């Protein structure tokens, strides 16, 4: 499966995602510079974590206007897979590829720690290799990870089974313990925790592999 990782100025998990996909999973992976208008030959786009454009103004607010993001939107529209991790999730929300927004953590502090996530549905290309109800131990590292959306949006997400992962112990005040959601077409996924940081035993957890395995499995079934 062919992966592309978007590099914004200020991205800092791009190399980690590359390592997980290219070295751990052995998948052909390439970078796409933010100024580029084409993603190249790609099945799944990764919008990585970091502080794109310094996250000045608002997290993800500037990144959404980059040429590469226009290409990501087109890719999503055509049904291609997109996963946004941490800052990537924030950017996907700002770009309206996902509903809602990520605001300051309730503690008003940056939080970095391993948390437990519960897989709420396996009906998605991002969780189909997990078990429903499975608890994954994956780190978070964010200052603005508190998911917020209007009650009717939350209702819709629930009704359409679009909350893919929830926090077992909510670390940041996210509405309804939401840690990751997908779009209506179920091909765009955003999550605050970092599966790429939990893909090797040496890093203390391999639970993040579940997410990448799902993506690879969906390539087979598509």
């Amino acid at each position, binding site marked *: 499966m062919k992966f592309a990782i978007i590099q914004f100025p200020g991205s800092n998990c791009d190399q*980690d995602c590359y390592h997980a996909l290219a070295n751990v999973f052995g998948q052909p992976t390439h970078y796409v510079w933010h100024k580029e208008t084409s993603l190249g030959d790609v099945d799944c786009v990764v919008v990585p974590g970091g502080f794109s454009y*310094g996250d000045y103004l608002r997290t993800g607010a500037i990144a959404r206007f980059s040429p590469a993001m226009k290409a990501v939107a087109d890719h999503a529209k055509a049904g291609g897979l997109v996963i946004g991790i941490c800052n990537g999730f924030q950017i996907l929300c700002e770009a309206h590829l996902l509903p809602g927004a990520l605001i300051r953590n309730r503690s008003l502090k940056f939080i970095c*720690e391993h948390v437990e996530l519960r897989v709420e549905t396996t009906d998605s290309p991002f969780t189909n290799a997990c078990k429903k109800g499975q608890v994954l131990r994956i780190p978070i590292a964010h200052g603005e990870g508190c998911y917020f959306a209007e009650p009717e949006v939350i209702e819709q997400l629930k009704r359409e089974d679009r909350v893919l992962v929830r926090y077992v112990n909510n670390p940041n005040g996210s509405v309804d313990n939401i840690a990751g959601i997908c779009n209506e077409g179920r091909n765009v996924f955003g999550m605050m925790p970092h599966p790429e940081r939990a893909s090797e035993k040496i890093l203390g957890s391999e639970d993040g592999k579940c997410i990448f395995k799902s993506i690879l499995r969906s390539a087979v079934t598509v």
Partner: protein
Amino acid sequence: MNITPEVIAKHGITPDEYERIKQILGREPNITELGIFSVMWSEHCSYKNSKPELKKFPREADFILVKAGEENAGIVDVGDGWAIAFKIESHNHPSAVEPFQGAATGMGGIIRDIFTMGSRPLMGFDSLRFGPIEGDSAQAATNRRLFAGVVAGIAHYGNCIGIPTVGGEVYFDESYNGNPLVNALCLGIIRHDQIKRGCAKGVGNPVIYVGSATGKDGLAGAAFASRELTEESHEDRPAVQVGDPFMEKLLLEACLEVMRKNGLVVGIQDMGAAGLTCSTCETASRGGSGNEIDLNLVPKRETGMTPYEIMLSESQERMLLIANKGREKEVEEIFRKWDLHGVTIGKVTNDGMMRIKVGKEIAAEIPAAKLADDAPVYHRSVEQPEWEIRNSKFETRSVREPRNCQTILPKLLASPTIASKNWVYRQYDHMVQDGTAVVPGSDAAVIRINLKRPDFGYTPKKGEPTEKYIAFTTDCNGAYCYLDPYEGGKTAVAEAARNLVCSGARPLAVTDCLNFGNPMDPHIFWQFRRCVDGLSEGCRAFGTPVTGGNVSFYNESPVAAIDPTPTVGMLGLIDDPKHITTQWFKESGHVILLLGDIGDELGGSEYLKRIHGLKTGKPPRMDLAVAKRTHDFVLEIIKKRWVASAHDCSEGGLAVALAESCVSNGDCMVGARVNVSQFKQRVDATLFGESQNRIVISATKTNADKIMKAAAKTGLPVTKLGATGGRTLKINTAKGELSYEVAKLRDLWWNAITRIMER
């Protein structure tokens, strides 16, 4: 502006130094030149007071590629063509005045020192000291504000730039009231052939300025850092720089890209302390050349800046680069990719002069080598302070032994100096870069270096290793150094080495940050000299040379000097990931051993301070020969895979080490039952004494037997203390049993600082 004696004094230049300046120039300096001399000859840049002492450090070894004092950071060989660059630096004074930006730019500055060498930063560390944070006093509130601000500043910078802050230490003590210590460290990876120097060579080569525009922030910060803090120090706030980690991230990526492209860069130096002044004269001095720059070409944030202000500005995120003539276009192209502007502001000359022009007019003209290297050197007088003699006469029997020790351990575990620092490190992204193998909270941080990362600029060939493992720690007990600077200095090095071997690493090299009071005071200089003596001896004992660091004098609040705090940062190598060892007990049924003599030293202990309100006595003695034998032994048994956990005994003594072994991993808390009644001495000394060279080890029964036998052979004392298991920690003493629920101890230890800070 007229150069009056008042103006000279205001620049911290003595009449003798002024004469020296006149001699060098062959005339009177103008105000810009005076400013340039004042920053370059400040202690921060010239080490004029500390140089003779620093020469005592062992600085040579065959694995050292860049020595202490040669460049922005020292570099050591770690095999297979790879090397590690690392350095620690203080940002105490700025952090006292403006904690958030002071600490943030401390991190930014040290990161620049590392990538200036061509090295990719892998991790940060921070060693912090504050006044006490508990209670309702105004002082405590100030200390909390400083603590919170500093931590937030480090988090802000490190998190944004994407360099994990993986460890450090925080101590709280009255002596740091009003003068916190913020020592920031950065470590990076580099190939031997990627090393760049801060050196200007090749007449006519362009001098290129990259990064943020120059503003009035941080004016003469180096000079500001080289004097005492006073009531008026808040007026120095313009001397504190403002950091932009996003800009530094761009600068980091762009500079590494430029440096990795063959033949573009001749030399490169960051503009840190003394900004444009330091980078121009030092590159010229190292290159045996001169340079000429035009201040009209320097990007500026505001109009109307004088040459004096431009030269002395310490605006952050700026680099000076000497490129090969004819390759400017390629350099500019890379910077443009990163939306940065590289501006040619001058050229390398061969007349040895640092010539600063404004258009055609000369604003300053100074022989570069003399400015950079001919600062005066002072041999300060020393005198042993009477408090050391007085404190050394303290006898333990003057303190009544508590009838019941049950309540003491919980108090010590909740003491902010001992308690878990998760309130701090949870604010730091300590996992970015996918390398953190042991997260903060064990004896040392352990990093897996993934050599296949494309951003390291080298693809390992077949048969070459694709990973390396390192451990890192910083250590220093200021109270020990206050009571006996020589023993304290030795102990700082030994504790660092002990933390590394407990993690499975072989100690390799040291960087140090020497924080002291006013060096003009003979008592302070005595502390400095004795600490350096102790550090030097320690470094020799472990074969860990000093590769660089920083001296910070004038750490005095309006009341008194800080405790002498020579922070030691030590790098260790782990030969095999299977050797990585952590401090917490792993499962029930393991045997608990104490390696080393039990000892009964209470002097300088956290117990005396917290429970009896005393900072006195002789701090624990440090026998370096015993330390070395102990470390070698621990490493040997770890390599044999006999050790399930290893934790060094430090602040709080044996009882705290045992409790921490039970509680420090929240996912795997294991109780223990131990017996210390065989030690026929004061129970408080057994439990809370801080005698050195002791390590608590747990192992399976079979392995414990092997360890006991091996220890007997080498003549190292080892005592079977008990076994792991259950949900309680039970300590049987000569005066009855102490018993604690592990979950309760965990809560006290884990949440103590959060409770104080989030109240």
